[in-house]
């Protein structure tokens, strides 16, 4: 009887990139539907939507046009803080841990200290996105001043920044980016890594996370459980079948990338597909410190829904 009260349709939004591979696998292999049936629930009608940027995600979620949003962990924490007492968003699951890398085509730049006024660092979003926050964390560690590099940053989407960086004909000399752009840039030989986000955070950290409103999570606990189970299943499958996962990704995204290249990214030991959040509190602590959030969560469990608490998160 309770199952009938739960939602019959599930609207899930993702963004571009290989970071959303668990979603893509769940979609293509119809894992959510499968898990629902296994749990004895009617298979929900799943609608997969692509949106660009956390802001559009948030607005859609708050407007009730979406059930599950996804974005970088830092913007998610920010949204969690901002919506406390109103929309009350809450993490549903992490979408895996993978490093972001600051690359540069300027041979002189070996570390953050080597940037000069002539350098420009491209970031995919402004101020409060995932990469800008990590860059600020790194600047804080290096210079003791988190906004030291802000004046060098410009906002430019990943693909454009990559094209600019590789062209060598532009002011863009550095780019804080994510897979597969990291690997593409490094493989071209025209850029080298300057900084790895794992080093900044002190180890593997969640990159993207799925989140929803508390209201939805509380009204649909079984559906949420099914979703997490489906993501777990997707992660297990990816880990077990990296080659097939690469092929599936390429087919689903109509990607022109080389399957071996994608497979290499999936196999990268730094990349971990797991629903358990990693080092979420490192982000929240930093955000609290620089005043972007007003409440410092005591534990990652404050950020994520109860169904996840059994996982080994951090």
């Amino acid at each position, binding site marked *: 009887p309770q199952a009938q009260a739960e939602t019959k349709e599930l*609207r899930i*939004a993702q963004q*571009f*990139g290989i970071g959303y591979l668990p979603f893509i696998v769940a979609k293509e292999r119809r894992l959510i539907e499968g898990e629902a049936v296994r749990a004895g629930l009617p298979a929900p009608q799943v*609608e*997969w*939507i*692509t*949106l*660009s*940027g956390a802001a*559009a995600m948030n*607005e*859609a979620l708050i*407007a009730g*046009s*979406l059930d599950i949003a996804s974005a970088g962990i830092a913007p998610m924490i920010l949204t969690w803080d901002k919506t406390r007492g109103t929309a009350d968003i809450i993490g549903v699951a992490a979408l895996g841990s993978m490093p972001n890398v600051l690359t540069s085509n300027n041979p002189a730049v070996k570390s953050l200290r080597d940037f000069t006024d002539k350098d420009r660092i491209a970031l995919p979003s402004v101020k409060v996105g995932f990469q800008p926050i990590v860059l600020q964390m790194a600047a804080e560690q290096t210079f003791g001043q988190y906004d030291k590099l802000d004046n060098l940053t410009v906002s430019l*989407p*990943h*693909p*454009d920044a*990559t*094209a*600019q960086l*590789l*062209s060598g*004909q532009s002011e863009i000399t550095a780019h804080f980016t994510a897979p597969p752009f990291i690997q*593409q840039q490094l493989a071209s030989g025209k850029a080298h890594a300057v900084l790895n986000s794992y080093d900044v955070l002190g180890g593997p950290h969640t990159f993207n996370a799925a989140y929803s409103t508390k209201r939805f999570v509380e009204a649909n606990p079984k559906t949420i459980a099914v979703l997490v189970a489906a993501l777990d299943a997707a992660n297990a499958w990816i880990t077990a079948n990296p080659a097939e996962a690469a092929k599936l990704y390429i087919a*689903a*995204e*109509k*990607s*022109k*990338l080389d399957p071996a290249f994608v497979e290499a990214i999936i196999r990268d030991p730094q990349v971990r597909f797991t629903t358990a959040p990693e080092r979420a509190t490192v982000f929240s602590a930093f955000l609290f410190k620089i005043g972007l959030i007003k409440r410092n969560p005591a534990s990652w469990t404050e950020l994520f829904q109860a169904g996840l608490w059994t996982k080994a998160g951090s």
Partner: protein
Amino acid sequence: MADATLAAPAATAPAAAPADQASRLRFNGWRKVVLLLGLALLWEGYARHLGNALLLPTFSATVRALVEGFASGELLARTATSLELLLMGYGAGLVLAALLTALASLSRWGAELLELLTAMLNPLPAVALLPVALLWFGIGAPSLVFVITHAVLWPVALSSYAGFRSVPRTLRMTGRNLGLSAPRFIIEILMPAALPQILAGLRLGWAFAWRTLIAAELVFGVSARSGGIGWFIYTNRAQLETANVFAGLLTIILVGLIVEALLFRGAARATIQRWGQEQ
């Protein structure tokens, strides 16, 4: 003297022009082709000189991508999806523009409202409408249609209203003399009289509908299934398939040229040029 007059600036060409309209039309086509070839060559040359396919593919590479895109059927499907949204938004925009402009020409309050709304809302980017669009229409196509409507409504309304306001007094008096009802006065007098401006507004609205559609497709959410040409551009851009990105843009250009040639030029030739409202 014929020579002398032909040597005069085209803008000041005598009204006798219709004389050789038929031959002129052929001539025009020829010039257009020459210009198009020139632009294509320029593109090709510059892209080769640049030698950076990631930033700017050559024209030939773009055409190749275009042909492949159409051969695979994807580009055609995407274009169809976009056109469908576009037409819905365009249609809704035109209807609203017609209503607002009619209201504006019927009452002082309507006029003030139109002027106010145009001045206020026209400069707002599509992103400003997102919250309201999401609230009212949810994610996806209906919201897209909504922002396209916003993009079309104001240029068309503004141009039409400006056109209405510059209808000569004698023509207005002629219409009023027949005791026309307000809707008839608007539809049968003001609209044809302001047709040059309305057509300019329709052209602009069309262009802005495209611009907005492409820019909005991602912000407003699409699923791979329902994505249009904006989706095509974005996904290819995300994969650094620059030739495909430009193939998508070229498709927009081609659609623009076709619509211009068949629809707008045709409409102008069948109306304002035939009626002597345009030289």
